[in-house]
Structures are given as C-alpha cells and as structure tokens.
C-alpha cells in the first residue's frame, strides 16, 4: 500500500448515561503522501473525534491508524496539530511557543540552528515583527499564525487541522488560508482538515470526505476536487466544475448526510481515487 496515512475500521465508543455509544464506526480512509483532504459533516457527527484519534489525544476503541508504514499509538510531534483555538501557552512569547517544540524535536541541532528554524517559520506566516509578543498581545488571527508556524516548524509527517479558521472573520480567514496553502505546497505535507465551510474545503482540498450524521457516523462519500493548482480564489468561481462540486457538497449535507452510510462498507477512499466517486443512492 502506498498510502501515507491509512485509517482502517476506525471506531470510537464513548460511555454515556444510556450505555456505551458508538460515535464513529468503521471509518476507512487512505491518503497518499502530500494530499490535502478535508472532512466535512454536520456539527456533532464526530469529525473532531476522528481527528483526535489520529492525533493520539483520544483512545481508539477499535481499528487502527498507520502513518508512513507504522501503526500509531499515542500522540507525538510527528503530527502537526492546529485546532480552532491555537492553544498557545500564554506565558511564552510567540517565539518561545515555537521553540518549545523545536527544542524537543531538533535536539541535535545547535542553539543557533534551532533559533533560525523558529524565526524562519514565524516570518513565513507574517509574524517577523511580533516574535517576542505574548499571545495576549496578538490578535486572534496572529495567534493562529503562531499555531501554524509551530506545526510546520517541527517538520511533521502530516498535519491535522480542526476548523483552524473557524473563529476568524472572513478576511483574516482568506489570508490564513493563503498562508496555509502556500506552506502546504512548499512542504508537500499530507494534511487532514476538518471544516464546516464548503468553499474553504473546495478551495484547499484535493478530496473532500463527507461524513454522515452520528451516532455511528462514517464516510458518506468522497468528492474529488480536480481544480487546477495553484488555485485563484476569484478564478475558480468562474469554473463550472467548481459550482458542480459545490452543489454536490451542499446537497450531501442537506439530504444524503442524514442517511446511513452504505452498509457494504467498500473501501471508500482508494490511494489513487477515481475521478469521481459515485453517489451511493
């Protein structure tokens, strides 16, 4: 298998007052190296749960996760993580927040080399003049930039983003999408992003994974986004393909997300996905 990240039969059961409840069931996905995949679905369906399992921050009830040929257990700096709130340590400056991880991962590098890595990534995300500010002195968008710099600076094997731009106003969101996609192109880094925003998913992704509603949420369908890169936000609006994809996604969310996923459980995501995955209906 040439998949860089492989999720097989990923299942999560949470205990609840009414007994154990299966939140996510048999989530199967294969992602080749360097691909950008978005996960979209209704609130509470289990998107974050899937991401947290891959991050190793919550336990996997059954199934498994293989990253670069090795089965994952527990969290680690090989997966860069950016969540909705940037979870920076407020007593550290932007630079120190980034350095904390760098010191941990590149412990063989010299002090100077490590400092350079931090400065490089902070400059790339546009914070050259704000490196020594604490999170409280930065705007929401700037904090998220620090979070992105911190994730990329560790040269992770993959990136996990959970609604990274969800708390930002739309102008800042556009700016940060640009920062993210530029870094992604430059680093060829496999990325899984959870989002609620159909346009964001189409603008950034190679594929969009549509999740059905929970409980027992799974993959409803996977949409290929064959728009040429680099994409121009305005230019893609002119493409009929874009509108067709957008209509499919919205239709999925409005109608088909509420149906049970196809019980035959065919491998939903092939390593080299077909041009368009047929709708199960």
């Amino acid at each position, binding site marked *: 298998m040439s998949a860089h990240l492989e999720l097989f039969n990923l299942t999560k059961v949470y205990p609840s007052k009414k007994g154990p409840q299966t939140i996510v069931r048999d989530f199967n996905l294969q992602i080749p190296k360097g691909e950008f995949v978005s996960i979209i679905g209704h609130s509470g369906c289990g998107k974050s749960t899937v991401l947290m399992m891959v991050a190793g921050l919550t336990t996997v009830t059954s199934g498994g996760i293989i990253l670069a040929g090795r089965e994952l257990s527990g*969290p680690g700096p090989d*997966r860069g993580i950016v*969540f909705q709130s940037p*979870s920076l340590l407020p007593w550290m400056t932007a630079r120190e927040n980034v350095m904390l991880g760098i010191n941990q991962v590149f412990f063989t590098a010299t002090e100077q080399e490590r400092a350079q890595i931090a400065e490089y990534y902070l400059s790339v995300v546009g914070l050259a003049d704000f490196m020594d500010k604490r999170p409280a002195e930065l705007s929401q968008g700037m904090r998220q930039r620090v979070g992105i710099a911190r994730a990329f600076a560790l040269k992770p094997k993959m990136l996990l983003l959970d609604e990274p731009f969800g708390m930002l106003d739309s102008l800042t969101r556009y700016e940060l999408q640009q920062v993210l996609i530029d870094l992604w192109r430059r680093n060829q880094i496999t990325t899984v992003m959870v989002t609620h925003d159909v346009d964001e998913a189409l603008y950034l992704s190679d594929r969009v994974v549509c999740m059905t509603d929970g409980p027992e949420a799974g993959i409803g369908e996977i949409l290929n986004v064959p728009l040429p890169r680099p994409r121009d936000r305005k230019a893609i609006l002119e493409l009929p393909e874009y509108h067709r994809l957008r209509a499919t996604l919205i239709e999925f969310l409005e109608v088909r997300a509420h149906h049970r996923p196809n019980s035959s459980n065919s491998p939903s995501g092939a390593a080299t996905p077909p041009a368009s995955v047929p709708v199960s209906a």
Partner: protein
Amino acid sequence: MKTPWNRFDFLLLPLLGGAFILLLWHLSSHSWSGDLPDPAKTWHESKPYVLEPWAKRGELDQGILRFTFLSLILVAKGYAIALILGTPIGFFLGLSPTFNKAFDPIIQILRPVSPLAWLPLGMVLFAKIKGINVTEVAALFTIALCSMWPTVLNTAVGVRAIPTDYLNVARVLKLSRWKTLTKVMIPATLPYMFTGFRLSLGIAWLVIVAAEMLTGRPGVGGFLWQQYNALVYEQIILCILTIGGVGFILDRLMSVIERRFKTI
C-alpha cells in the same frame, strides 16, 4: 461630575470615619469603660515607642518598629516553611485523585484548628529535641501549620484547572515529566498559587500574635500581652494598630505581586 467634593472624598470620608471611631473611643473611656485609656493618653504613653521606633531598652521594652521587625522575621520563617511544604502538597492533591481522596478529609479537619490549639502541641512535640529553641520551633510549627492551607488548597484547585489544551501541547511534543512540570504545569498554576500565597500570608500574620503571646517571645504580640499582664493598657491599642497596619501593607504587597502573575 467632578465636583471638588468628588475629588476629595477618597481622602475626606476615611478621615471622617476615623474621627468617628476616635470619638466613640474617647466617649467610651470616659463612660462605661473606665479602664480604657482615652486617645490622648494612649498617644502620650505610646510616644516613646513610636518616636524612637528602633530603641532597645530591654528584651520586652523596645521601639515599635523593632518589635515589628522581630515579629516579621518569625512570620517570614514560618511562612516560608508553609510555602515550601504547602505548594508540593497542593500539587500532589491536584494531580492524584488517590492522594486527594486519602488526605482531603484530614485536611478539612485540621484546617479550622486555631493556633491556640496547635501551639501546646508544638511545645510537646519538640520538647525532647536537643539544641533547638523549643519556643521558637513551636511558634514556627504553629505559623506554618495554620497558614499552609490556603496555599495547599489553591494550588490543588489550580492544578485541576490547567486547561487540557496546555497539557495536550505537552503530550504532543512528548515533553519529559520535568519539562511538563516546569514549562506547562507550574506556569499554568501560578495565578492560583499566588492567591494561596496571599491568603497564607494573611493567616501567618494573624497567628503571630497568638504565637508570641503564648511563648512570651519579644515582638508586637508578645509586647501586647506583657503590657496587659503588667496592667499597662496604653500600648495595647498601639500594638493593635501596628498589627493591623502591617497586615494591610503585607496584603497590598502580595496583591501587587499576585496581579503581576494574573496577566499571564
């Protein structure tokens, strides 16, 4: 709305309040409380202690600042012990539910015990140890034991309140236990710890009087008790005012420090 009145009321009103209390004091001493020296007499008899605050005429006859200094030294030692013991205990309580279950009930029982009860125990506890000043050690024991609890409990609350986000950062980066403690947990708990430290200092200062009274050590509290026993009542009020003033200043100082750590 800045009338001249508004501009000075922060000064005028407290002065008025003080004047009212002085009047009450004066009237009391001339009516139902015959033994109470009136304000003028109190001031007259206290003058040597206030105007020569650093004088040392005898073990229990020293200037008021000198007494305060002696008391502060004792409090500082006891308080230091309280912090050194209380902070780690608070951390353990916050980190380990087992530890918490085992010790929380006993802490809740020990916490309200008065210093007057601890001091005799301290005297008994350390009586047979050679080469120490038993009264001093017993006083320190009492101060530390009474003032430790706010630090213990606030630290524990702070540790439990560390946001999962911060702990996840440590987990994802695979920080060592030591680094997780020093880079994440302690900084995240600091604001709570300092609230505990401030409350602890207040109690430590409160306990000093009791400790000095019972042990007869020189200091503001010991002086107060000695003058009372010698039927010299003029300096009792001087001591009370000194204790109150010092307590107030200590609390202000700690608030300033606390606020600095709140901003993180």
